[in-house]
């Protein structure tokens, strides 16, 4: 079955440290890939998306993600985390074969310690 896996439920990093959030998908062909962020009491905000081309995608707020076809992964990174980055992060995929609907992972909660 098609799925999106975010292996880490919680991650804690120190302010200023680098961050990598993992995302793996299981689809037959490369889907469209997204990362969203959800702050407490807020809706989801798109950080970045990948359709094709350059496998390193730049997003808002200093985030980037790298698509690796061989690993079916789309990991989110940030070189230096700020306290305001504390939130929940969701990886999502969309595939034409399945009606262009977004399928989300379970999310990773990021805590930032000062």
């Amino acid at each position: 079955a098609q799925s999106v896996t975010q292996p880490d439920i919680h991650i804690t990093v120190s302010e200023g440290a680098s961050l990598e959030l993992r995302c793996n998908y299981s689809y037959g062909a490369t889907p469209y890939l997204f990362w969203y962020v959800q702050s407490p009491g807020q809706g989801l905000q798109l950080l970045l998306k990948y359709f094709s081309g350059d496998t390193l995608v730049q997003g808002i707020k200093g985030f980037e993600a790298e698509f690796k076809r061989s690993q079916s992964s789309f990991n989110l990174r940030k070189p230096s985390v700020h306290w305001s980055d504390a939130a929940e992060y969701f990886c999502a995929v969309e595939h034409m074969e399945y009606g262009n609907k977004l399928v989300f992972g379970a999310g990773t909660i990021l805590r930032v310690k000062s």
Partner: protein
Amino acid sequence: EAGVAQSPRYKIIEKRQSVAFWCNPISGHATLYWYQQILGQGPKLLIQFQNNGVVDDSQLPKDRFSAERLKGVDSTLKIQPAKLEDSAVYLCASSLIGVGETQYFGPGTRLLVL
């Protein structure tokens, strides 16, 4: 540009009661989505509209949930009767028509069923 509006923000009801949520999408967005986000999980698509027609309602529990989008703009999602397991955040999103178009999310309605 105004974002996706949802109301109410919070609702507490007893099981077997009915409840309705309202969504006003971004102006010009033909596609509207309702998601259910249970605590600790990613959002799950309940129903997708394109203009005032249903594109996908395969995961909508039709024995108790209903949704409509009159005139292709505002939408309402209703639960009747509610069950304890319906406690969740209900997110509305909208987008332009097309593959991979960014979905813009509202702040959500947090429902607690007692």
